[in-house]
């Protein structure tokens, strides 16, 4: 099949079939029990531990690690889930190198943090594999809450509400629950249908029903929902994409990276996902890194991520950048596309202008380079796509405005996750906000 590898154009099956499995295997394989003990032993059980402060969900990290070291994996998992019911997914997808592990005092001491993420996975895997459920719903409050969006924010909110004794109905526009856990996270971070297992694990508490293929804005309105429910929580993420700021001669010249990743995540057979030989990705965030890396793993021979600023400005952490480079992705800085044209053979000519900072502002240099590619991905940020669906709810900086209790301008509607202003577009932050919004909803409904 080597000839397919070298073929121009956007085609399927660039690799030998067994290579796909290898390429998309677990990126960070789990610790075995002995490795976990050794890793746990490195934790100093800090006072007022900086890692806890750095975790958006404030998991009691020294405690759960100490529980691992004493052989109490159940207790350890419970400590994690008490703060973060999606602790299993977070253990896989959190950029720990910029969160808990960056703050770890052993990172300060020797540049080798305690492997908090992997230890968290060790404990949560144990609980989830054995379906150990730690929470029962409180006595029924008689209240029902509609949650829109079954992503991390919605699921965390629903679970906390169920714990408090409320009934929850989740509506999600997609055929499967999980949000970007199911459709967005890089394949090798969440293998073996983990996102669906996690949805089942979280909803097993009872009192939560999920309605799929049900979109706010189609048959559902906020007002309609509030007629039936005591409150609404919006965890709708960001559905839209920013437009490519380059001149193009047709609309479908570039591929939205998020859509491509969703297709890949849902693919039954990776060999059936078509990818170019020469691929360019425009962007500098986690999505750009993920689409570039996965294009390589699908067999693209030559993948370039082009970012208009420097390495340190990239939203993707340096660890993510390094992992991507290690897979053979070429990350180029200080260049932006200005014109894209289609050649007769179907390939794309991307005219790039080199950029620089002038008086703190990004400007073009007037120097250009044209790159011929088969496939062009845009990963230049997502926008709130809800538009009219959220009615009169106030928006700021393109996202839903909330107060410190995650209440929107409509006092019966709360919101959290990527769709609200002021977050950092991380799974763990969505979980924290969903959880805290649930506490606020509970406080508002029962007092």
């Amino acid at each position, binding site marked *: 099949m080597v000839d397919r590898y070298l073929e121009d154009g956007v085609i399927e099956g660039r690799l030998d079939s067994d290579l796909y499995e290898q390429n998309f295997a677990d990126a960070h394989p789990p610790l075995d029990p*002995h490795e976990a*003990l*050794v890793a*746990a*032993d490195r934790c*100093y*059980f*800090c*006072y*007022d*531990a*900086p890692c806890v402060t750095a975790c958006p969900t404030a998991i009691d990290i020294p405690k759960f690690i100490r529980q691992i*070291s004493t052989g109490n994996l159940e207790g350890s998992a419970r400590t994690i889930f008490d703060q973060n019911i999606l602790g299993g997914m977070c253990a896989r997808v959190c950029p720990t190198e910029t969160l808990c592990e960056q703050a770890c*005092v*052993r990172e*300060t*001491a020797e540049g080798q943090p305690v492997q908090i993420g992997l230890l968290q996975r060790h404990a949560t895997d144990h609980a989830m594999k054995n379906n150990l459920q730690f929470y029962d719903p409180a006595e029924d409050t008689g209240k029902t809450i509609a949650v829109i969006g079954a992503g991390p924010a919605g699921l965390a909110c629903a679970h906390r509400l169920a714990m408090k004794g409320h009934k929850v109905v989740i509506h999600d526009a997609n055929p499967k629950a999980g949000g970007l856990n199911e459709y967005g996270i890089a394949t090798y971070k969440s293998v073996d249908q983990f996102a669906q297992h996690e949805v089942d694990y979280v909803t097993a508490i009872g009192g939560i029903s999920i309605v799929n293929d049900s979109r706010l804005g189609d048959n559902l309105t906020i007002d309609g929902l509030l007629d039936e429910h005591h409150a609404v929580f919006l965890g709708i993420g960001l559905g839209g994409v920013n437009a490519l700021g380059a001149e193009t001669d047709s609309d479908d010249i570039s591929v939205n990276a998020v859509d491509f990743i969703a297709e890949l995540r849902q693919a039954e057979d990776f060999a059936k996902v078509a990818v170019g030989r020469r691929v360019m990705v425009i962007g500098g965030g986690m999505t750009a890194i993920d689409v570039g890396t996965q294009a390589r793993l699908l067999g693209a021979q030559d993948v370039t991520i082009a970012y208009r600023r420097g390495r340190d400005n990239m939203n993707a952490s340096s660890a993510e950048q390094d992992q991507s480079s290690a897979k053979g992705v070429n990350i180029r800085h200080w260049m932006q596309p200005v014109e894209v044209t289609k050649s007769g053979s179907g390939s794309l000519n991307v005219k790039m202008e080199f950029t620089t900072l002038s008086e703190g502002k990004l400007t073009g240099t007037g120097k250009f380079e044209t790159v011929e590619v088969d496939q062009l991905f845009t990963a230049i940020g997502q926008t709130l796509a809800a538009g009219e669906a959220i009615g009169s709810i106030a928006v700021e900086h393109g996202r839903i405005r909330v107060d410190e209790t995650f209440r929107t301008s409509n006092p019966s509607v709360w919101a959290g996750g990527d769709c609200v202003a002021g977050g950092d577009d991380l799974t763990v932050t969505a979980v924290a906000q969903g959880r805290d919004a649930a506490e606020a909803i509970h406080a508002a409904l029962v007092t």
Partner: protein
Amino acid sequence: MADLRHNFVGIKSPNPFWLASAPPTDKEYNVVRAFKAGWGGAVWKTLGLDPHIVNVGGPRYGAIWGADRRLLGLNNIELITDRPLDVNLQEIKSVKKAWPDRALVTSLMVPCEEPCWEGILRQVEDTECDGVELNFGCPHGMSERGMGAAVGQVPEYIEMVTRWCKDKTRMPVIVKLTPNITDVRYPARAAKAGGADAVSLINTISSIISVDLDQFAPEPTIDGKGTHGGYCGPAVKPIALNMVASIARDAETAGLPISGIGGVTTWRDAAEFLTLGAENVQVCTAAMTYGFKIIEELVEGLEQWMDNAGHPDLDSIHGRALPNVTEWQYLNLNYTAKARIDQDSCIKCGRCHIACEDTSHQAITNMVDGERRFEVIDEECVGCNLCVNVCPVESCITMERLPAGDLDKRTGKDVSPDYGNWTMHPNNPMRDAAE
């Protein structure tokens, strides 16, 4: 290069590292391997009368470990040799013949009757080994039969059996002491009174190492039951060091040669035993954990340290720490130290703070001007050293002596330049009348 040649009660060996009487010295095959590896001597696994005892057919050992399975303490329910006396004696003879420059001592444990000792001593003399060690220490299995620790716990028996042996043999007699007593000086004095050439200590400490929580039975578990065993390895070293020092400092046993045993794992452990009055050391658990090759590190490490520090031979380090071992009431109570935190090496884990805050003297901050920062509060610090012990960064916290004349902010008094101990202290109701 430092001279490690060693003479213990007339028994010569090329270095002061002997293997203790235990599985590593159970038979010719092991001892020859040890000598090939470079061990200075060996005390043969304890011999008894025929019919020889039998060991359990299940697990004999238990252990405690660090997280990476570093063995910290070992426990055993093994007995003395489980091979016929004749076989052992022949092998001892053959090893001694092949290795004349190594120390070979035979350990013995027979019932507390004079003819028993007389008989076995005569047989041991035939092997031409260098001496005997009387095993008064084994805490399990044998003591229930009136041997081992059962003898070692009764000073009168020690003296009596030692005297029998000294009467019956020309060989040097080393008495091995059990730590399972209240004050180890009594058995040591009894050994000396009986004419012992030397004492060796410690044997293992009575222990239950762990409990199987499914079977509700002590480990190692034999068919659902367990029993107490003997504890040894790195964890017992502090106990052994104290016992060695207290015998070395005791006026009644002063000058009695001591073979130090208990937890010796590195050259540093050995050096500590030697400076506290042991003339040589014996090793069991470290060899059982890592094999005989550790002798290379033991010998080379000791030599290197002696060379670097300018100690030419073992005599020049023997007992050197003893003059500085004293009783609590003679410590200088005017000595004042405060903890100091090196902010550059502090990694802000907060362990010093919480240890001091929760369990000691509330003398370490956790916030200064709204920043996470750990500083010693001199007004509260009693200089206890707990923070130093719990700090994960070596040398990050140090105890600094306050010079005489400086104000101790805790007491509000200047540090006295004089020496003043408890016997002179005004709070001591029994202080010396002269003061």
